[in-house]
């Protein structure tokens, strides 16, 4: 058994850890400010409702404090904290009768990124598998700062909420929280490949939702030709 951590923790992290262990309230609050919202977000993917997710996140902090003396900094504080969260959330989910299996892709929907009817059929002599109709650019950049962009973000939020839990967990950590793939794999117990498959499906679904919204918006409101 090696008594050296496999990865040295960053200096600021060991200072942080020392402050926490010393009972420094400010250090604890800083950590809470940094991670609590993300903990709640991830917990929601396991337990479904936000109030229960808040309980799971609170319980996570209590468990983390209790385990602080035993934490050996083999992983980052962040990874350690989120692992405690997933364990806690699984316990709560099981109690609530929700079956969550993050690593199992088999039972998952195997839907394509884009509806098959958007492409020319295999019977097409020349262009099988190519776009059946030109793809319209969204022009979302032009919406910068306008009301439509807020509405667009609401649509994205709603699309995320509609995702299967495993896809939602991965896209939340990767694209909302900006985590590295390796950290996500560590916390959710996924292989890199499965992590990317889930990310792929999640992004494709969000893209479809945004496309539907923009197309509906364009056909409803804007002048079609001028």
């Amino acid at each position, binding site marked *: 058994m090696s008594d050296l951590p496999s990865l040295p923790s960053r200096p600021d992290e060991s200072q942080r850890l020392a402050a926490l*262990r*010393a*009972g*420094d*309230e400010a250090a*604890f*609050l800083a950590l*809470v*400010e940094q991670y*609590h*919202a*993300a903990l*709640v*977000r991830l917990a929601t993917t396991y337990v479904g409702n936000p109030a229960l997710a*808040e309980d799971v*996140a*609170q319980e996570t*902090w*209590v468990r983390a*404090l*209790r385990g602080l*003396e035993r934490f050996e900094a083999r992983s980052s504080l962040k990874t350690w904290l989120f692992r405690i969260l997933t364990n806690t959330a699984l316990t709560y989910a099981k109690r609530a009768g929700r079956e969550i299996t993050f690593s199992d892709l088999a039972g998952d929907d195997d839907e*394509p*990124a*884009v509806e*098959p009817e958007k*492409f020319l059929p295999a019977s097409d002599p020349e262009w*099988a*598998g*190519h*776009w059946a109709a*030109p*793809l*319209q*650019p*969204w022009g*979302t*950049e032009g919406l910068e700062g306008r009301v439509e962009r807020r509405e*667009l*973000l609401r649509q*994205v*939020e709603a699309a*995320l909420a509609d995702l299967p839990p495993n896809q939602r967990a991965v*896209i939340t950590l990767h*694209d*909302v*929280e*900006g985590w590295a*793939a390796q950290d996500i794999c560590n916390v959710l117990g996924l292989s*890199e490949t499965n992590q*990317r498959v889930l*990310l*792929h499906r999640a*992004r*494709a679904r*969000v*893209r479809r939702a*945004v*496309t539907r919204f923009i197309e509906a918006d364009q056909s409803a409101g804007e002048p079609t030709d001028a």
Partner: protein
Amino acid sequence: MPDSTLTCQELVELVTDYLEAALPPEDCARFDAHLLGCPDCAVYVDQMRATIRLTGELSPAALSDEARRKLLDAFRDWRAQPGAAPSAPA
């Protein structure tokens, strides 16, 4: 089929591997070659990039005062336990 060209339908399934730099070099080259000749797939990739940007703009919910208070209470309880925080400042 090393020389087979990519169809649009195939490309859309590779886009995440492409954007996450997980495509093998030869597939990456096919992907890039397809994009050069296919404005629709270029639009698709732009839409995926825009999707990622939009998702990245979602702000995590703010920490409520109640949650902060509860957590601070939990922290003080933990600190008050014998042996929990040996070097706790007075």
